[in-house]
């Protein structure tokens, strides 16, 4: 696990696949049940006060798949089917989406999550990232919002090349560009921005575009349209690594918004095995905080009560160990939300005037964060 995973070449992945296959055949020909051991990863646990090692990227235990159990046999079956597809993709140097793979054997896979899990298993097994397998994820939709969303969007003081195509955001900083899927093809990043602003959703992104926020503020704005997909997070990570800019994140003041925030900063549990290349520890929480509601004098109508599901969700969020160990200030805000029992959306800031968000809220928030010695929400 000390291998720098991003550097893995296509060929070496194929070699690893061949080695893996050989070991399977060997075990079978010796009359033994093949056993595939898959490391388990997690980026947090739910005991905030334990001496866990969640912040390390080391595997937390492993699981051995053998042919003695039917569920394992199925998982091996799926894993091998996906591996055959991956091997083909890599040999032909094509890319396939998780959805493509699912449709190769829809009746066997039965649902997309089965394929997703197999892809994760293979990544862990081969010690590589998903993009090393030439697997991309597209068609990411989230049912929770009314607006169905696609991949990430970017705008602002940025310019880069992707596979020879020039993304010249700088020349019109209020135009949205879709974030490239093949982040490894992104080169020649140039920027004069002062910070990167992540917004949870497209409607806020559109608001800022409409307000020409980037004309007045030298920044880069990114949205993952809900839960960010891998290219968005990798792209963000790449920007942060290349440009060393501060990153601020603006999400709804609700458990989903908060969870999206943590996805940017700490990565998701499903991709925990790849957290080291996906998380962006530099992310600072800009808002909206539960306390902002009074602070910015929002009308009561914009305040929604937390549903039972919201409360349950918030309570489980609060248990995550990193909230205690790394960002205790976030935890306090989250506790405050639970205590008040209310939530609100960023759009609520548009109530007074449409440009309130871009002209007052965000600038004041950034000023607050940038004050020396006032890094409380980082």
């Amino acid at each position, binding site marked *: 696990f000390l291998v720098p995973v991003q550097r893995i070449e296509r060929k070496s992945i*194929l*070699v690893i*696949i*061949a080695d893996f*296959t*050989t070991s*399977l*055949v*060997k075990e*079978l*020909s010796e*009359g*033994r*049940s093949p056993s595939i051991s898959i490391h*388990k990863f*997690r980026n*947090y646990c*739910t005991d905030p006060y334990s001496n866990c090692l969640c912040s390390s990227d080391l595997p937390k235990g492993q*699981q051995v798949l053998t*042919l*003695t*159990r*039917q*569920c394992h*046999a*199925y998982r*091996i*079956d799926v894993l*091998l*089917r996906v*591996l*055959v597809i991956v*091997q*083909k993709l890599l*040999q032909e140097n094509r890319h396939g989406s*998780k*959805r493509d793979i*699912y449709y190769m054997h829809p009746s*066997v896979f039965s649902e*997309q*999550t089965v394929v*997703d899990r197999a892809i994760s298993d293979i990544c862990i097994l081969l010690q590589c990232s998903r993009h090393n397998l030439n697997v991309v*994820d597209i*068609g*990411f*939709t*989230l*049912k929770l919002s009314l607006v*169905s969303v696609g991949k990430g969007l970017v705008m602002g003081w940025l310019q880069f090349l992707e596979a020879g195509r020039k993304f010249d955001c700088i020349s019109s900083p209020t135009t949205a560009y879709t974030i490239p899927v093949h982040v490894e093809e992104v080169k020649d990043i140039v920027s004069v921005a002062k910070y990167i602003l992540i917004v949870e959703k497209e409607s806020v992104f559109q608001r800022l575009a409409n307000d020409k926020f980037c004309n007045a503020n030298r920044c880069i704005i990114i949205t993952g349209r809900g*839960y960010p997909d891998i290219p968005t997070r990798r792209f963000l990570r790449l920007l942060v690594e290349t440009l060393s800019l501060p990153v601020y994140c603006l999400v709804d003041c609700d458990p989903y918004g908060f*969870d999206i925030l943590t996805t940017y900063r700490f990565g*998701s*549990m*499903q991709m925990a095995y790849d957290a080291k290349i996906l998380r962006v520890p530099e992310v600072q929480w800009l808002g909206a905080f539960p306390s902002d509601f009074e602070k910015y004098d929002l009308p009561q109508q914009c305040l929604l009560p937390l549903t039972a599901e919201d409360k349950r*969700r918030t309570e*489980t*969020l609060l248990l995550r160990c990193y909230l205690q160990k790394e960002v205790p200030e976030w935890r306090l805000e989250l506790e405050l939300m639970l205590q008040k029992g209310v939530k609100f959306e960023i759009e609520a800031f548009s109530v007074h005037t449409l440009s309130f968000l871009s002209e007052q809220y965000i600038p004041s928030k950034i000023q607050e964060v940038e004050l020396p010695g006032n890094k409380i929400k980082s």
Partner: protein
Amino acid sequence: MGCCKPCLTGTILKHPWTASVTIEDELQLCRISAVLKSLSPSILQISISDTGIGSCLEEFQDLNCSSIIAVEFWVGLNLGIVTDCTSLRVVVLYLQNLIFFVCKGIYCSFNYELKLSASNILFLKFLYYSVEQVNIAIELVTEREDIPGSRCENVFLANRSNPGPLSTSNVECLKSGLEDYVLKHGNSLTQKCNTCFATSERLKVGSGIACSTENHKSSGLVLEVVVIISELESKCPCYRECSFKTEVLYFKDFTPCSIPHPTLNVLSTIDWQSYGLTLENVVDQGVCVLEWGDSPSHSQIDMVLHCYHKQYPMHKTQLEQHLIKKAVTAALNNLKETHPGILRSAHALKICSHAPDLARSIAGLILSSNDPDFQGECFSLLGLHSREIGANVVEDCIQEKIVSVIEMNDRKSRQRNVVAPSLFEDDCDQDSNYQDKEYEEGEDEFSYLD
């Protein structure tokens, strides 16, 4: 023969054998003992005694005794028949009638031969035809009265093709009896089907015995189970009817009878799943019929249970149920071990169902690779030497190996008695919010026409 009345014949002969036949009709138990004595090398005395219940002396008076040398009647309805060896056939007929008589409502017919061999060993051969659903079991007790401890008890369900020698164990007799029954009966419960099979070659026989342990001194209960799996021609018209049903024959103390209810219940508690069988229903329609959820791999299953006491009088215990389970399981295990590939557990079957897929995937990984070294290594591991091997050969070879690994595990697991794995177990400690709800197909959210 402690349970029988002692033979009252005063003369002590050179070869005094006693044979007892126990038959239980619907009403009560009636044990008939035949004592065979060779009065001279050519004269055999057969004295038959019963337990005194169910028949009366007068019933034997008007027997056609023309060919019988001597008929003696003892107190307590003991019937002695003395005949010479040449006219044994007549004796047979008498016995047949007699037993038929004693059996009352139960119809049975059999041929009966006694031979005195050169070496003075008595062979009793029962040829029986269970024309309908009645079988008979014979307990032969041989005893040289002059030699203490020479008593030897045997029970068998005799059949024609496989005459149980006197030396065969009871369970062997039961086996050959059921074999004969299966061959006779064909695969049809109601009528014989000649097209299905004719030889016993295709029968797979397994047997199991369970005895009460010494702790249960008073009981001496023995349970013998024979299971026969007979392959069926799937073309045969009676295939569907039979392959989903198993008739269970039941003998209590060598007598066919209907299965008592507790025993029936025990049958349903047996872990059939681990033999790849899905028991759907246990029907008691005179005979007990097990109905299977799916055809157990194109075959019919027949089974006989025999429960008897080594010692008389019997002692009522709950033990029988326990022994049935043990004996049936033993018989199934015996069958499974002696005939690999059959009675694979449901669990193993499920895993085996993945074998072709797994094999195809692994073969795919090997064959689609553009790395010849890797391919070569795999072929050699698989014992395939030609490079010109087709995809099917590789796949079949891998599949075979996978299946044998699974079967081995299946057999192993029964010995180690592994806890059945939960299908739903998830080792991944995902926390509650697996929120990455991807791929809700967007299209479903929209309605086309409104």
